[in-house]
């Protein structure tokens, strides 16, 4: 698996798209910091970018990579390699190269800005960790979609739909649900709803840092425990890990049954 990972990774970090992605984050970091000079504001803007764009790029890139390397995958399949190592290797190659573009792209301007001397380092690290999680989750979801759909166009369509659903529609439905059932105690349910969507989960993780004052305005005891203690941080991190592990397991599972 490590060999596949190595080659996928090399292949990707030399691709044009990785550079585009890397440059994008580099520019974003520079623009946010040096044209704005306001670290707190930069972190907030970054958060918006990360929870929307990172999943989108992870999804699109994952699907794209899978389809474009299909023949190569077939070549590998004829080699004495386990299927799971081939797909996990490729998956990790994509996820790691994307994560690296993100972390280095954003990291460079922030380091130059003097991040290590600032209090924002924790907020910033949390952002990067969340970004890494989201990349791993959405690349895995993209691989799932791509493996299950031979048709490229369909695969792309489903991938974009998935992103749209989790990034926007889910929250809309969720909001409607909460408003319609506002007469019932909803705090447990609303936290549960957050757990089911990795984008919401990462958003919550960041809210814990940025908006704790507002979150503590709500009276529910479960909320208080979740947001007022480390409980929320721990649960969110565990759930994000589950969100990585489950799709990865499914990659292994369906790749074993699939015909090429």
């Amino acid at each position, binding site marked *: 698996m490590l060999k596949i990972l190595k080659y996928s990774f090399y292949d990707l970090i030399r691709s044009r798209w990785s550079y585009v992605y890397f440059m994008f984050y580099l520019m974003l970091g520079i623009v946010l910091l040096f044209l704005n000079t306001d670290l707190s504001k930069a972190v907030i803007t970054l958060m918006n970018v990360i929870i929307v764009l990172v999943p989108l790029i992870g999804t699109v890139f994952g699907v794209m990579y899978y389809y474009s390397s299909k023949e190569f995958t077939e070549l590998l399949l004829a080699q004495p390699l386990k299927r799971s190592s081939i797909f996990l290797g490729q998956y990790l190659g994509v996820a790691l190269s994307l994560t690296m573009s993100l972390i280095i792209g954003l990291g460079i301007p922030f380091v130059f800005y003097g991040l290590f001397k600032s209090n924002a380092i924790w907020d910033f690290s949390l952002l990067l960790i969340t970004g890494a999680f989201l990349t791993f989750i959405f690349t895995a979801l993209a691989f799932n979609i791509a493996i299950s759909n031979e048709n490229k166009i369909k695969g792309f369509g489903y991938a974009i739909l998935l992103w749209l659903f989790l990034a926007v529609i889910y929250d809309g439905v969720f*909001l409607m649900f909460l*408003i319609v059932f506002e007469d019932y105690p909803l705090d447990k349910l609303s936290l549960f709803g957050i757990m089911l969507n990795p984008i919401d989960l990462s958003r919550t993780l960041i*809210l814990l840092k*940025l908006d704790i004052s507002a979150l*503590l305005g*709500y009276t529910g005891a479960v909320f208080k425990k979740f947001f007022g203690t480390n409980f929320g941080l721990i649960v969110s991190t565990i759930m994000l890990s589950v969100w990585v592990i489950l799709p990865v397991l499914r990659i292994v599972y369906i790749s074993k049954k699939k015909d090429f």
Partner: protein
Amino acid sequence: MKKGVVLLITFLIFLAFNVSAETIVVCSSCKISSIKTAISIAKDHDTILIKKGIYKEYDIVVNKPLSIIGENLPIIDGELKGEIFTIISNNVVIDGLHIINVGSSYTKDYAAIRVKRSRNFVIQNVILEKLFFGIYLEKARDGKILNNKIIGNAVIEHSSGNGIQLWYSKNIVIENNFIQQVRDGIYLEFSDNCIIKNNVSANNLRYGLHFMFSNHDDYINNTFENNGAGVAVMFSKHIKMLNNTFKKNWGSASYGLLLKEINDAEIIGNLFEENTIGINIEGTNRITYKNNNFIRNGWALKVRGACYANSFISNNFLYNSFDVSYNSKLNDNIFDNNYWSNYTGYDLDKDGVGDVPYRPVKLFSYIVNRTPETIILLRSLFIDIIDFSEKVSPVFTPDNLMDNRPSIKKIKW
């Protein structure tokens, strides 16, 4: 001749003062080992010097003008039996005592030091611990409370007392005190013309500072941190609130500053940082908010209605989850030339003022008011989209509620 008489009188007064103002020393091995005894034998204007040691006394009534001064912080232990000092005379000074174990009761408000119908007192450098009420002024005037440290251990609101309480008192200066973990740090009821300056009031169960029916008071340069609510100003007029810090007042009913039924106040140069609600405003008129910093609060301003002719001028609103929330569609308040970190407009003519007005009230704040659980959708892309559409064509938020001249740069003063 006249000159001679003046000299003589001066001399006589000086002599008389010198003669009468004796110092009585109290210590455990001295002739006088109890404060009560010392007071009973003291004459007016004497000084009682209490040496270091532990004195188990309570219900000490100071009924003549005396200076009671502790040396190296002697401990007065009330053994939870009742009130410790009760001052019923003018011109009393209490200085440098460490008072502990004030009795508590559901029927009587026992205090460490109570001043009753007296004038010209000074209470300073006192440390109060394990107390019910700390310093209690009852119809007192022209006094000073300086450099004291009041450390309570209050847990439940209804069985604990206030740090410094003023009731029908006037012209009191409260300065450089440190108060923590009592019910209200400082509480003023029917007390006018007081100045509260440079105090720190923290970790109190209810309010850091609390005004009820008190007018013409100033509080300046105080810090209120992690209280149930920072400061509550209710049913009062002409209060000046200058350069205070309101910090980390977190909780469901927690505010940096709570304003209720107050008129004609000035709120200038304060810092509201990381409070659940920066200022909660209800039924206030003609208040000027100027040059305040609102940083990382849940809600910087929560306006609950019946607020008229207030003006919010040249404040900085930085990274609050919500800048302003309203619960009605009406607005009679002015927002002008504030800096909003959430402002996304531009300044093409480079005059330092944004060319597009800023609308500080978001649709989402209405939704959260209605269904509080929705707060977990904060900063979701979906919410941003509905907020944006509301911004473009307001339906739920007051039409005229906007800052027409939002500043492009952080305001400095």
